């Protein structure tokens, strides 16, 4: 038990470079695997949360842009969404990495971009913004006509109309699908360190460490189920967080009409 506490002290923050420098090499204990894979989850949460947070704003802009009457705005939003939704995220990571690598050799400004914490975040940010933008666009199209007419009747126009009527309704309609997108985003963060981006000083994400253990022990039946357990817990947390926001978004409706987000992971990205 005390050795396990020692392990947690040594490796609990290993993924961000705090603690023991060397990874365990032999005689792996269950405790070590749990601790290291768990510490890798820090990166998954970091990438997922950051990309979602920043991506939300770009996604709103893209959704509104795609529905815009201005042809230049509309076309550019459409192309952005098409490019990031139509190609595999895995290839996007590779392309992004080598693009930043090439830029780095020209301008020193791009130095931090080849590191995973920034470069991969940018790729994930664009990717999730494109997917969520499409969701928001769909929601914008299905705003009830009566809501817009009511806004007109109240004399709202321009920014006030968007801020008070269109935007909240759009979020309300899009929220279940957006929850799904968030879950998928967290899942796709596992790709970061398996594509071009290097894990500097073996600071990797959860899948990186799970892969490390599976390679060393040649036994996939321990590390991958641990990883799966962590991800199921993370998924449940994401669902409950988005459920709280959903309740808040629909707070004006009578209790019985609340649309619960069902715990169902079946919508496909």
């Amino acid at each position, binding site marked *: 038990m005390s050795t396990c506490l020692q392990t947690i002290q040594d490796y609990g923050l290993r993924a961000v470079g705090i603690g023991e420098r060397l990874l365990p090499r032999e005689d792996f204990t269950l405790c070590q695997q749990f601790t290291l894979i768990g510490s890798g989850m820090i990166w998954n949460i970091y990438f997922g949360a950051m990309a979602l947070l920043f991506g939300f704003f770009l996604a709103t802009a893209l959704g509104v842009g795609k529905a815009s009457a201005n042809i230049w705005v509309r076309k550019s939003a459409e192309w952005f969404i098409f490019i990031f939704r139509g190609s595999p995220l895995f290839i996007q990571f*590779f392309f992004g990495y*080598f693009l930043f*690598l090439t830029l780095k050799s020209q301008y020193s400004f791009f130095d931090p971009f080849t590191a995973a914490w920034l470069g991969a975040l940018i790729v994930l940010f664009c990717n999730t913004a494109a997917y969520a933008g499409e969701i928001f666009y769909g929601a914008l199209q299905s705003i009830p006509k009566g809501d817009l007419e009511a806004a007109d009747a109240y004399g709202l126009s321009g920014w006030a109309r968007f801020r008070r009527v269109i935007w909240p309704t759009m979020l309300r309609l899009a929220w279940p699908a957006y929850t799904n997108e968030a879950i998928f985003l967290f899942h796709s963060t*596992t790709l970061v360190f398996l594509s071009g981006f290097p894990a500097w000083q073996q600071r990797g994400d959860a899948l990186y460490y799970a892969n490390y253990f*599976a390679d060393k022990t040649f036994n996939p039946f321990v590390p991958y189920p641990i990883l799966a357990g962590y991800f199921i817990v993370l998924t449940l947390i994401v669902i409950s967080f988005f459920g709280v926001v959903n309740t808040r978004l629909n707070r004006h409706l009578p209790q019985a009409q609340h649309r619960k987000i069902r715990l169902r992971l079946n919508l496909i990205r």
Partner: protein
Amino acid sequence: MNLYWSVLTVLLLLGITAPVALGFGFLGASAARSAFAPLRWIGKTYIAIVRGVPDIAFFLFFVIALDQAIEFLRHKTLCPDWTEPVRQGSDFVVCQAAKMPLGNSPQWVHETYGFSIAVITFAIVYGAFAANVLFGAMRAVPHAQLETAAAYGMSTRQTFWRVLVPQMWVFALPGLSNLWMLLIKATPLLFLLGVEDVVYWARELGGTKTPRFTDYPHGDWRMWYFLGLLVFYLCFTRVSEIVLDRLMSRLTHGQATAAGEAQRKAA
């Protein structure tokens, strides 16, 4: 030259995986709505677990797990008088005759074996997605249809095969076409499974070797190769999208759904 072969590898993978995954999906969906409880639990757990965990983790897991399972079974049947344990610390030891593929078999056997493992892995993972879609589609078939079948005296099995299965495809198609897109976008993951696919060759051909012994008369072109791959996949998904749209509009023709009604009005 190898780059062109690897494009064929990707297409071959898609061609084989799609029907196999559909088969897995069909089995999973039928199990999930079975009247026999343990079978139903198996079906539902299969769907839930594969969907709740990142698919990449599954790819990495199944490649080793399947390989070890096959070798273990062969070990049990081929070398019954072997007494040492199979897992010795960090090693997985089976007798020589149980190695899969055999150590002395030619190169193409190794490649085919690796490829088949990859296909099975893809089929298991995407079979769960398909099972989900088909399960939903089976539930979307109007219940009155099933009741009518029962009223005509059909057995459960007859109702399933003659009424439910033929009608569910219209409901399943949007989900399945979505799945096809997903499958296309998952093909670069072959690279992770150790198959020499397009990603592998894009890295190899684009990169420079050590400067003195460079094989290629150019600098780091990997960026451009990956840009090419990006465009390749974009065209691929776009073409599939168009084809699937056509298929959908043909299937909805004359159906009693909202889309079919819209088609009728437009005509």
